[in-house]
């Protein structure tokens, strides 16, 4: 084999190819693991949501499939896979197919740069935070294209609403994280976590409370969750941009949305809550906690944030569309800018 290749290309290139091949194999394995685990978490996030909201509304939630309905997500998945795939006659077919893929993939790609625990990240790149912004802005394409290619008024309106909402809040979200970048001095997510660990409070959520607040609100809007779920407001738009989708294509939107939530929770855990670490003053007080693997702390933080998502959904009513835009442009962006100015000033003053 090597000889055949060697006749076509230079022998040392073959070595390089083999070396690359092994690297690529490892990366592929990592990707597969991350996606599999993440999707499992996503599936159980839906289950957990129904349970949480059920109990909050004083009912039980899913209970039939498996013990306390534990197998419910799998049953749902199987059902969605075997449902009939209906495509509207006037739809723009290629784009109609493409839209859920874009949406889902852009959500999944973000997983690549998230450090789950010390040393474990699929791609440890220097501009991790920028990569997250890039990918989250891509989600808008999936939504717009889905809304437009369905050739349906409800879907189209939902798509437009969603796109303008996502674009507007992306600015606030980006700006809210600038404070973190300034404090950590890096865009690499692992570096941010390490810098955070060195910081006295161990979490940027405390000095960056303003940024954290803006980030949380923007995260809700970015993922089209209550109280900002205007794009899929069922009382107005049936189901918004994915009105015309069914079966597996619908499942991709559904999974994409929950992946998005998971990623937002992860970003907040990494950038504001200390990632896989816990503040030093806690470990100093209880040294035993050092033995607990970092992934546990990470998951606890992520699920706490997810719980907050559900809690808000069960509690708050939906905003009007103009109120949504007003909050984004007139409150969150100025607040985020203020946060940047204050952070920069404090950093200069403390340093010099």
């Amino acid at each position, binding site marked *: 084999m090597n000889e055949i290749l060697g006749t076509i290309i*230079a022998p040392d290139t073959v070595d390089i190819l083999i070396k690359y091949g092994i690297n690529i194999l490892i990366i592929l394995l990592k990707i597969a693991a991350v996606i599999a685990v993440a999707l499992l978490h996503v599936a159980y996030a839906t289950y957990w949501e129904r349970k949480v909201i059920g109990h909050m509304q004083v009912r039980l939630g899913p209970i039939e499939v498996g013990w306390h309905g534990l197998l419910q997500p799998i049953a749902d998945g199987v059902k969605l896979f075997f449902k009939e795939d209906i495509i509207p006659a006037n739809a*723009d077919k290629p784009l109609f197919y493409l839209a859920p893929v874009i949406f889902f993939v852009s959500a999944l790609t973000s997983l690549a740069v998230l450090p789950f625990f010390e040393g474990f990240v699929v791609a440890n790149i220097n501009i991790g935070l920028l990569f997250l912004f890039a990918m989250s802005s891509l989600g808008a394409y999936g939504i717009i294209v889905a809304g437009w290619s369905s050739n349906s008024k409800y879907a189209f309106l939902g798509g437009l609403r969603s796109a303008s909402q996502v674009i507007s809040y992306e600015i606030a979200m980006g700006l809210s994280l600038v404070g973190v970048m300034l404090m950590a001095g*890096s865009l690499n997510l692992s570096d941010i976590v390490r810098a955070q660990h060195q910081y006295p409070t161990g979490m940027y959520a405390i000095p960056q409370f303003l940024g954290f607040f803006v980030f949380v609100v923007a995260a809700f809007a970015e993922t089209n969750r209550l109280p900002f779920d205007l794009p899929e407001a069922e009382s107005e738009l049936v189901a918004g941009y994915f009105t015309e989708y069914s079966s597996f294509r619908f499942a991709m939107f559904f999974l994409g949305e929950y992946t998005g939530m998971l990623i937002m929770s992860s970003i907040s855990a990494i950038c504001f809550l200390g990632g896989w670490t816990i503040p030093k003053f806690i470990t100093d007080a209880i040294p035993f906690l050092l033995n607990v693997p970092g992934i546990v702390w990470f998951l606890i933080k992520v699920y706490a944030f997810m719980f907050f998502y559900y809690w808000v959904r069960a509690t708050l009513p939906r905003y009007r569309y103009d109120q949504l835009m007003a909050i984004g442009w007139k409150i969150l962006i100025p607040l985020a800018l203020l946060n940047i100015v204050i952070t920069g000033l404090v950093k200069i003053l403390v340093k010099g």
Partner: protein
Amino acid sequence: MLPKLFFGYYAAVIVILSLLVVTRKNPVRSVMWMLLLFFHIASLYLFLNAEFIAAIQVIVYAGAILVLFLFVVLLLNLREELKVKRFIGSWPAGLFVSAAILAIVINVIRSFVLAAPPGKYSIEYIKEATHTKALGTILYTEYLFPFEIASLVLLIAIIGAIVLAKRKTRS
């Protein structure tokens, strides 16, 4: 060898995608091809050790500018759009002129040799300092004034866009 292969792939795809962008009848398709094109160009930038610019390319070009295009395209009456011809009557003239300039420029570039000595921003230097930091340092010191002007340009663009696109209320 491998870099050349990579470059060959990207170059071929970028050219094909560019052609697709300017030749598709359906503007929405053009926008989607352009999205793909931007990703390839961003990858090419990564290839050239310009990771920050690559991220900006995706965030600003793909994430902001192209979404605006998509918005405007969606306002069009597509059914009518698909009925008419995509090129103007005198398209061969345009084709000839652009092809002729391209031929001349390519002919010149073929014999182009890089003569200037390398500057101080070597690959090692950038790796050491990270690209973002290197770019940021030079941007906020040497190019601070143009940077401020760029912010002013953006501000004016915001105001201008609002003024232009706002529906006039007839009193």
